[in-house]
């Protein structure tokens, strides 16, 4: 690949390690994020997500390794690198005694903006985040969701190339979560974004590429689709049948292609719910449906769960090996 066609690396992470005393929080993580890309950073609590983000943003140096932002080395040209970053920490730290406008003005000024351009940009951000009604309210009066918006506001006010968002949808109500995801998608059109999350559908919805980290290591890195197909594994079905639980389970288990069946009685009399794991690449649903109907039982529900990102995630982070069972 020649340099002219190669995508521009906006975030470069090369073999970073971070140890807190003897505890290794991050061990040998390397990845690159290209211009215009939205990268999801997934991992259970304590996997090293926040540590990695703090290293990326220059808050703390890695014990070893190198970080570059828009071509600037975070260690040797820290100020130049930091100019390119907008950062929203997980806790959304804000000065609660300031008004929204004053706060955004302060942050914009610190990040080097001035004059009419700064004012226009602050108005722009207030409008974009729909904070108009609260622009002159003290931040202490705002709800968590609005504070989140102000936090995003300070991250984008100086139009940085790179956005680092640590758990941007944590702790806000479901409607605002949907809005925030849409906002991040929109921001992805003109920013390079790295966001961490432990909500997996969110990441597959917003991100073009996913990094799963666990215990300080990169467990997997790919597009959400590729991760699903690469780790395809057994298909997963959920069935609800009105009929005798034991016989229904036995019948389903006897079908070709079915690996395991897990039957639970439901709250309803005579209704059984089954979790079925079957061999990949073979749709057993018509066959199952026919068998149930032949026995004059009622098939109330038959749902393909598939291989969700959640399962991939669990499998990668809990070291379970489904293939060995199959």
């Amino acid at each position, binding site marked *: 690949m020649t340099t002219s066609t190669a995508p521009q690396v906006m975030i470069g992470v090369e073999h970073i390690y971070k140890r807190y005393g003897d505890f290794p929080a991050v061990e040998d993580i390397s990845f690159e994020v290209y211009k215009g890309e939205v990268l999801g950073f997934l991992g259970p609590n304590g996997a090293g997500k926040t540590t990695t983000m703090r290293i990326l943003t*220059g808050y703390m*140096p890695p014990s070893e390794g190198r970080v570059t932002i828009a071509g600037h080395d975070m260690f040797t040209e820290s*100020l130049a690198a930091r100019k390119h970053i907008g*950062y929203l*920490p997980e806790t959304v*730290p804000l000065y609660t*005694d300031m008004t929204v406008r004053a706060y955004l003005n302060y*942050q914009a000024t*610190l*990040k080097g903006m001035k004059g009419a351009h700064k004012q226009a940009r602050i108005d722009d951000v207030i409008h974009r985040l729909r904070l108009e009604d609260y622009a002159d309210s003290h931040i202490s009066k705002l709800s968590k969701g609005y504070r989140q918006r102000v936090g995003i506001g300070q991250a984008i006010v100086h139009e940085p190339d790179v956005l680092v968002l640590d758990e941007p949808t944590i702790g806000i109500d479901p409607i605002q979560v949907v809005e925030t995801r849409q906002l991040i998608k929109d921001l992805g059109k003109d920013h390079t974004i790295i966001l961490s999350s432990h909500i997996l559908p969110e990441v597959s919805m917003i991100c073009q590429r996913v990094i799963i980290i666990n215990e300080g290591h990169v467990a997997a890195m790919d597009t959400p689709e590729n991760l699903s197909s690469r780790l395809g594994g057994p298909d997963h079905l959920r069935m609800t049948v009105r009929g005798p639980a034991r016989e229904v389970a036995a019948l389903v288990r006897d079908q070709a292609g079915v690996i395991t069946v897990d039957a639970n009685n439901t709250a309803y009399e005579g209704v059984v719910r089954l979790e079925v794991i079957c061999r990949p690449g073979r749709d057993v649903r018509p066959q199952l449906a026919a068998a149930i109907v032949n026995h004059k039982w009622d098939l109330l529900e038959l749902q393909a769960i598939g291989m969700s990102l959640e399962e991939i995630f669990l499998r990668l982070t809990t070291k379970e090996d489904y293939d060995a069972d199959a």
Partner: protein
Amino acid sequence: MRNILTIARKEAQTYFGSPMAYVIAAVFLAVSSVFFISDLQSTELARLTGFLFGAIVLLTVIAPLLTMRLVAEELKLGTLELLMTAPVREVEIVLGKFLGAFAILFAMLLLTWFYPLILKLGGGEPDFGPVLSGYTGLLLFGSAFMAIGLLASCVTSNQILSAVVGLGLLLLLWLLSAAGALVQNVEWAKGLLGYISLTNLYVDFLRGVIDTKAVVFLASITATMLFAATRAIEARRWR
């Protein structure tokens, strides 16, 4: 430079926007006026010595109260993380915060302008030399005290703890001044303690003397403490 002023302005606005600064200023004025009046009544001299004497004692207590929130609050709120990832140097953070606090001290001392005025209007002939040197002394001492308080604010996220540490350091500094009397037999120790005695230094200012030695000494304390504060903030990156 721009970043320093941006941070200083924000800090000053925070002080003026909170009741804390007003309460402290009110207490400062109320208590210092007692010193002013009682000196006036007992000596019947048109001088500010009583006020200036009271003011330095009050400043010892007030300075750590004014500075306790400067960094500790940012640590508590988590906002220091944003400040340290913004394109701003640690030294700019420290100087900005120091300047913001200094502006409050300056404003508070400005509010005492009517003490000299009363002396003049009351028919006295105050000597403005000692008045000016006294105010200069207050500002220099105040700077040093607040720099110590700022350092104390960098080491904890608990504002009360920060105030206690700051006040403790200041009281130790004052006690060191008095310690000269305890080591009369050890010539070099006596000399050294006399040299760095805050009491001796301040008395000179009250007499109308602005000694270069005193200015350099107080400015060095301020600079050293601000440098240490910068290092204390930098050190947070390595945890």
